[in-house]
């Protein structure tokens, strides 16, 4: 069950990883506690910084577009802040469920209507929204090191990784082009990724 005061179409509940979610809940409580007299801008910014990358990844996965994923991230975070400030989210512990439900429904709506955005930006400053590349994200991949590691892979693994990630193709599609089984491609792909990671880590350690 969703924890928004208004009727919700999202009839599910996310089971939370406690260690990660406690901070999200605490931030939501701070925002609710301040509303409506004043804003806790620091809590709002931190909540957006934490949840933004997850929404963006969900958007890329389901919309296959960086631009659409950025739009989704903005729209969901703006709606979340709106609901928190209004006190419409009764249970702060359900903030992650609210975010996933909103993201899921927004993707469905966009697919159904062809429209991508329902803007609320006029009501909110956009400086709260995290950039597409999070500041505290992983180190950028060293392109030169990656070239060396890809070049050192066995031929089949290099071919399968390129064919897979050139346009994010599933194993059965790659297998059809190579004359292999999908299961075989999954095994080669997994080995290739593990070997590539190992090479990148070893090179990093040696640097």
């Amino acid at each position, binding site marked *: 069950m969703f924890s928004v005061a208004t009727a919700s179409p999202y009839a599910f509940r996310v089971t939370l990883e406690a260690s990660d979610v406690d901070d999200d809940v605490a931030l939501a409580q701070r925002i609710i506690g301040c509303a409506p007299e004043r804003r806790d801008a620091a809590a709002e910014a931190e909540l957006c910084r934490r949840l933004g990358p997850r929404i963006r990844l969900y958007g890329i996965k389901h919309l296959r577009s960086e631009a659409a994923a950025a739009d989704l991230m903005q729209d969901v975070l703006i709606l979340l802040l709106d609901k928190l400030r209004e006190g419409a989210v009764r249970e702060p512990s359900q903030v992650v469920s609210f975010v996933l439900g909103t993201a899921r429904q927004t993707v469905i709506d966009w697919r159904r209507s062809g429209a991508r955005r329902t803007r609320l930006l006029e009501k909110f400053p956009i400086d709260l929204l995290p950039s597409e590349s999070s500041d505290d994200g992983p180190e950028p991949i060293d392109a030169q090191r990656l070239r060396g590691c890809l070049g050192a892979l066995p031929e089949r693994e290099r071919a399968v990784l*390129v064919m897979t990630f050139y346009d994010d193709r599933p194993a059965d599609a790659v297998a059809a082009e190579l004359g292999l089984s999908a299961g075989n491609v999954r095994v080669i792909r997994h080995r290739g990724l593990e070997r590539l990671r190992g090479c990148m880590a070893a090179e990093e350690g040696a640097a």
Partner: protein
Amino acid sequence: MTRAKCSDLQTQELTEYWLGELDEAHEQRIDEHLFACAACSARLGALVDLGAAIRRTFVEGWLSIVLPEQFLRRIIDAGFQVREYHLPAGGSVNCTITPDDDFVVSYLRAPLQGVKRLDVLIDDTTSGKHRATDVAFDPAAGGLVTMTSTAYVKSLKQSQQRVRLVAVDGVEERVVADYTFNHYPS
């Protein structure tokens, strides 16, 4: 609702999720877990970044690689400029590359029916001898499509590259075909 535990979401499952290989219910469980678990979300983000970096490395022409012809067709259809050379078994060709070329590919015709493992031996007057073992190929395709690193070819002065296809069966090796590329800078 079944809870997707953090320890369950290893690279293989995240890869299958990302590439749309899971059924809808399984995919939804992972969606939910990813929203609640920063560690798994970060791990997926790293996988996505690595995939994008592989794509970028390939598109920028840094890789020499054997690929199926259908895949090459998709690259051409996507608008990349591909310089192609077609060689029969035993053939040779004078070749070059221009600044506008995104990729250089060679179609090496060869009888591959019955071949279990195929190695490619390269003898290059610039970079020396190399052996690519167990390349991916379709025996029914009647040949092999090889792509040479565009970055490497663009750096070449006049040079020659001899390519030999070798069928391997256990400890036995059999020469399938030889090809010669005489490269001249554009």
